C-alpha cells in the first residue's frame, strides 16, 4: 500500500497473467486478441449460415439480426436482461468447466441445477419467520449443498469404484427429474401451477429494479435507471461473477486447484506427487455440482421465486457448450455465457420480427460448430507462421 506504483504494477502483472493462463500457449496478449478474433469470426460465420435458415423461413436476415441485436443490447434494460439471461448459463458453464479441469465430464449439471433449484425453493418456502439476512443465504446454500451432494455421487463412484462419471451423471439427470419435478412438485405444490409454492420474501434474490426502493440508495439519481419493472436482472448475476472469481482463484491460486488440475491432466503423476486423487475427484465434482446448484438456486429464488417445471430449460447442456467456448476458463465462460444469454434475450425480439425462435437454437449450434472448426483454421495459420519464422 505504501508503494502504489509497485502495487499497480503487480495488478497489471496479475491481469496479464490471467490472460496468459487463458491462452494455453502462454504467448501473451497478442494471441488473446487472436483468440477473440477467431471467436468473433466464428460467430459471424454462424450468423451468415443462420441467415440461410431465416431466408428459408421467408424473412429478411437483416431485419432479424437487427432485432436480435436491438433486443439484447439495444437499450439499457435489454442489456441488463441479457445479463439476466446469461446468469444460469455462466453458472452451469463454470460448473462444467471446473469439472473439465479435473479431467471429469460433468454432463449432469442439468440434474444438479434441478436438485439445487428444488432445495433452494423448498428452504425458501418452508421457513417463514427468518430474517432475510439468514433466510436468503441459507436458501442459496441449500441449493449449493444439494447440487454439490448430487454431483458428489458420481464423484464418489468414480473415485472409489472407477465408475465412469458420464453414465452416472446421465442417470442422475433423469433421477433428478423424478425426484424434484415428478415427486417433489407433486407433493408440495399449492394451486395449479406446476411449481413449488412461492418462496418467502425473505428468501427472494434482490432484483435490480428494486434498487430505487432502497432507503439509502434511492437518493442517488443514477439508481433511477434501474427502476423499470421490465428489468429482471437479480442478485444471481452478481453471484455468478463472484463464483467465477472464486473458481478462478481456487483453480489457479490455491494448492487445491493445483492438485485438481494435476489429477485432471495425469492422475498417476498427481498420486506420485502426494496428491490424494480420490479426494480431489470427489471435491472437484462437489464444487462443480455446488455451482450448478447455485444456478438452480439463482433461477428459483431470483427469476421464478419458486421451483417451476421447465425451469432448467436445458441450461445444463448449454453450459457444456459455454464451458468449451470459454476454453474452460472463468473469463471465457463469462463471455460465452453472455453470448448465449444475448442470443436468448434477443431471440424474443427476433420473434417479433416474424422469425421462428428456433433460429436462435440453430445459431447456438452453428456457433459451436464454427468455433470448434475454426480452431483448425487457426492451427493452419499458426503453422504457416511458424514455418515462416523457422526459415
Amino acid at each position: 500500500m505504501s508503494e502504489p506504483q509497485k502495487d499497480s504494477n503487480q495488478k497489471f502483472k496479475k491481469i496479464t497473467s490471467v490472460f496468459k493462463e487463458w491462452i494455453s500457449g502462454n504467448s501473451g496478449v497478442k494471441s488473446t486478441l487472436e483468440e477473440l478474433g477467431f471467436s468473433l469470426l466464428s460467430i459471424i460465420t454462424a450468423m451468415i449460415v443462420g441467415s440461410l435458415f431465416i431466408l428459408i423461413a421467408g424473412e429478411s436476415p437483416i431485419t432479424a439480426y437487427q432485432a436480435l441485436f436491438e433486443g439484447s443490447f439495444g437499450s439499457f434494460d435489454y442489456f441488463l436482461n441479457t445479463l439476466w439471461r446469461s446468469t444460469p448459463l455462466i453458472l452451469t458453464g463454470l460448473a462444467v468447466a471446473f469439472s473439465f479441469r479435473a479431467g471429469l465430464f460433468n454432463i449432469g449439471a442439468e440434474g444438479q441445477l434441478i436438485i439445487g433449484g428444488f432445495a433452494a425453493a423448498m428452504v425458501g418456502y418452508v421457513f417463514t419467520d427468518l430474517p432475510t439476512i439468514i433466510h436468503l443465504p441459507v436458501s442459496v446454500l441449500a441449493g449449493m449443498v444439494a447440487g454439490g451432494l448430487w454431483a458428489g455421487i458420481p464423484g464418489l463412484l468414480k473415485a472409489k469404484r472407477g465408475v465412469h462419471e458420464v453414465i452416472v451423471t446421465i442417470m442422475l439427470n433423469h433421477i433428478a427429474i423424478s425426484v424434484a419435478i415428478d415427486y417433489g412438485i407433486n407433493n408440495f405444490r399449492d394451486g395449479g401451477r406446476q411449481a413449488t409454492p412461492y418462496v418467502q420474501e425473505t428468501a427472494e434474490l434482490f432484483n435490480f429494479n428494486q434498487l430505487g426502493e432502497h432507503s439509502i440508495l434511492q437518493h442517488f439519481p443514477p439508481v433511477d435507471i434501474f427502476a423499470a419493472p421490465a428489468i429482471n436482472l437479480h442478485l444471481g448475476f452478481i453471484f455468478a461473477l463472484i463464483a467465477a472469481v472464486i473458481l478462478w482463484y481456487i483453480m489457479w491460486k490455491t494448492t487445491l486447484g493445483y492438485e485438481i488440475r494435476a489429477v485432471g491432466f495425469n492422475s498417476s503423476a498427481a498420486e506420485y506427487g502426494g496428491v490424494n486423487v480420490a479426494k480431489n475427484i470427489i471435491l472437484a465434482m462437489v464444487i462443480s455440482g455446488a455451482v450448478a446448484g447455485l444456478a438452480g438456486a439463482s433461477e428459483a429464488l431470483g427469476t421464478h421465486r419458486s421451483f417451476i417445471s421447465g425451469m432448467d430449460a436445458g441450461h445444463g447442456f448449454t453450459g457444456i457448450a459455454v464451458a468449451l467456448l470459454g476454453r474452460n476458463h472463468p473469463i471465457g465462460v463469462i463471455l460465452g455465457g453472455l453470448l448465449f444469454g444475448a442470443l436468448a434475450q434477443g431471440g424474443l425480439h427476433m420473434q417479433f420480427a416474424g422469425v421462428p425462435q428456433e433460429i436462435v437454437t440453430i445459431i447456438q449450434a452453428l456457433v459451436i460448430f464454427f468455433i470448434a472448426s475454426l480452431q483448425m483454421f487457426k492451427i493452419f495459420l499458426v503453422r504457416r507462421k511458424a514455418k515462416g519464422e523457422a526459415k
Partner: protein
Amino acid sequence: MEILAELFSLSVIFATLRFATPLILGALGGLISERSGVINIGLEGMMLFGAFAAVYGSGITSNPWMGLILGILAGMLLASIHALVSVKFKADQIISATGINIFATGITVFLLQVLFNTAGTSPRVPRLPAWQIMDFFPFRPITYFALILVPLVWIFLYKTPWGLRIRSIGEHPQAADTLGINVNRWRFICVVISGALAGMAGTHLSIGAGSAFVRDMSAGRGFIALAAMIFGKYNPFGALGAALLFGYSEALALRVDLPFIPDELFRAFPYVVTIIVLAGFIGKATPPKAIGKPYNKSGD
C-alpha cells in the same frame, strides 16, 4: 403370485423389446463410433432428426420405407457434421456432439413449422407395417432389424478386417496409421454408421412404433442408449443385454404397482438400478484407450 406371473408374462416381454428397440440401435451406433475412438453423445440429436426426416419422407411419398431411408440418411447427415467437426477439424468431440444435440432440437421444430406449419405434432403419416412372424411375434420391422443387427455388428467388429481396424484405431491410432490404415477416414465412416443406426432408432420412434413426429420425442433415449452401451461394456451383446434390462424395468414399471415406492419415484428405478449395478457388481467398463482424442497424423 399374480405379480410373479406378470414379471415374466408375454406382454411384459413384448413391451421390453419395444422399449429396447431404439436403445439397442442407439447403443450399437454409439458402440461403433466409440470403438473407433469418437465419443458420440450426439446420438440423441441424430435420433430426433432421424425421427423427423422419417415422418417427412413417409409423408411426401406415402411410403414408410422411403421414410425409413430418409430417417437413416438424416441420422447420417447429422453424423457427418459431427465427424467433419470432430474428426476432420479435430474439435473436441463432446463439444461437437453437444452442438449436434442442440442443432437437432432447433432444426426439427424449425422444419416442422416450415414444412408442416405446426410446432408441436406433425400430421400422421403412413407407418411401417407390423410384421407378424409365425403368427406370434408382433413387432414392427425395426425391432427385428435391431435384433438382427446385434450379431451382425458383433461379427463385423470381431470377425472382419474392418472390425479389427476399427478396434485398433480406437485403441492405438498411431499403430494403425503406421500400417497404412487411414485413421480419420475410418473414424468418419464409423461416426456416419452410428448416425445411420441412430437415425433408424429415431425412425422407429416416429413411424415404426408411432405414426407422427412430436417435438423432442426422443426424450433422452439417445443418452440411455449411451448408458446401455457403456453398461454393456462396449460389446454388442452386452449392449443388447443392457438395453433389454432398461426396457424390462420400464415395461414392468408400467404394469406392476410396487408397494412402498411412490409411483413418480419408481419411474427412476432403471436409472437407480443402473447406478447400483455399476457401482457394486459390474465394475469397470473400460473405454477404448484413444477415445475422445482427435488423431493428428504427423503433427498436422
